């Protein structure tokens, strides 16, 4: 009996050592997943794809029924807005043409705004709520790489955390911490406000935008925060969110804007992975031209 007690303790200790080793292995900065993880992710991802179809079918029916209830009111509201948009569209078209002409004159073919979209579907969401992660059905074979930005039509939702051959994991904005930042900017007439999206505050449901370079102090509520090309990884001008409130940080040195995400991060279906079209060598050219 004494021997058995010791054996149990022994197994528990070994288990504990294995746990620490595994956590240590997975938390260190590693660029890629191991081959085993990739294989498991691909296998599970394929099955998730299969299971996901009937699940979305059912949830779609439920939401459709809900949508029918307020269709009429929405329709009237949208009709009013539509007439306003029409004039805006003409204006935008004009400006676009002008912009293209000017770019042609200068000989710029690719700008920091350009990107190649990779369409993807969300197949699963992590049940562990502390790890805000979803899986999409596009992987390295489709050109997805780590650290690419993931957006929906409304705005940014996250970035690629790890890739397998046919699936990849997306870290959502709600799960951001100081280890995965995004350079962002608020557009101004003279000098833009630059800063970093540094994390997500669960209590107020908003992103923390640390302002590094402030051109003027009167940051207003409702101003749009967009991604900046200065991070070197993402294209310029993707909507991140709107400013809710500005507070000073815990040391009182810098100010932090609370930013409400533009996209609905809780209801994700179809997303776009943003592959920046501009290569590194061309980047230096455009920067010189800007100066």
């Amino acid at each position, binding site marked *: 009996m004494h021997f058995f007690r010791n054996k149990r303790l022994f197994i528990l200790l070994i288990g504990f050592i294995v746990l620490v*080793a595994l956590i240590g292995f997975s938390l260190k900065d590693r660029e890629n997943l191991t081959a085993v993880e990739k294989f498991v992710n691909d296998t599970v991802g394929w099955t998730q794809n299969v299971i996901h179809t009937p699940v979305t079918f059912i*949830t779609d029916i439920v939401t459709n029924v809900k949508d029918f209830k307020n269709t009429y009111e929405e329709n009237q509201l949208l009709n009013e807005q539509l007439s306003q948009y029409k004039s805006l569209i003409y204006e935008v078209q004009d400006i676009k043409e002008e912009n293209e002409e000017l770019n042609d004159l200068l000989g710029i073919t690719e700008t920091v705004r350009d990107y190649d979209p990779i369409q993807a579907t969300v197949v699963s969401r992590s049940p562990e*709520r502390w790890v805000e992660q979803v899986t999409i059905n596009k992987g390295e074979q489709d050109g997805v790489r780590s650290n690419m930005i993931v957006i929906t039509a409304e705005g940014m939702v996250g970035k690629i955390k790890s890739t397998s051959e046919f699936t990849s994991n997306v870290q959502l904005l709600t799960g951001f911490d100081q280890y995965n930042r995004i350079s962002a900017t608020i557009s101004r007439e003279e000098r833009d406000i630059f800063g970093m999206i540094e994390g997500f505050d669960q209590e107020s449901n908003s992103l923390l935008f640390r302002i590094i370079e402030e051109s003027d102090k009167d940051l207003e509520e409702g101003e749009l925060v967009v991604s900046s090309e200065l991070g070197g990884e993402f294209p310029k001008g993707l909507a991140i969110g709107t400013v809710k409130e500005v507070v000073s940080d815990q040391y009182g040195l810098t100010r932090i804007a609370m930013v409400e995400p533009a996209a609905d991060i809780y209801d994700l279906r179809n997303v776009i992975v943003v592959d920046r079209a501009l290569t590194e060598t061309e980047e230096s050219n455009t920067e010189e031209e800007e100066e």
Partner: protein
Amino acid sequence: MKRLFFPLILFLLTILEGAALELLPSNLVMGNLMIVPHWVFAFLVYMAIFYDKDYTYYSIGYALLFGLLIDVVYTGVLGVYMFSYGLAIYIVHGLKKILQGNFYVVVLLGTVGVLLADLFIYLIYTSVGIVDMVFQDYTLGRMLPTILSNIVFILLLYPFCAKRLARWQWEQLSGKSTL
């Protein structure tokens, strides 16, 4: 042949967990209460109570295996679910030797098991630094809703699992004295 059912069922539950948050109404998901589906664990509790004999440890083996699978697929931090599920199922397996396998015991051991598993996950994540949450917030905001929702799932499983697993135990494990 029937032994293949266990990996298949557990695999299916693992995948359904990924779609679980979509199936739940969004105002539940968006609120401050965190509901974590431990469906794989719920089935493992049934295995530990009805399938495993006192000297067989199939449920613990599957707990380690599918805990690791959840780690790989859903969190990326290896070992956390594997260790938590394994240890919690081991404790359930030990308690089951004292108690009879009936409906009330399932509810009791299910509650204890989910509580322990989720607590281990919280402890490991906090010590590693992934989660920064006060214990009181954790108990009210995550532990209670998680236990309640998983108990509902365990109750739903009862009519499908209890008798069947007991029969499989009789078919597959009786007459053999070793693993």
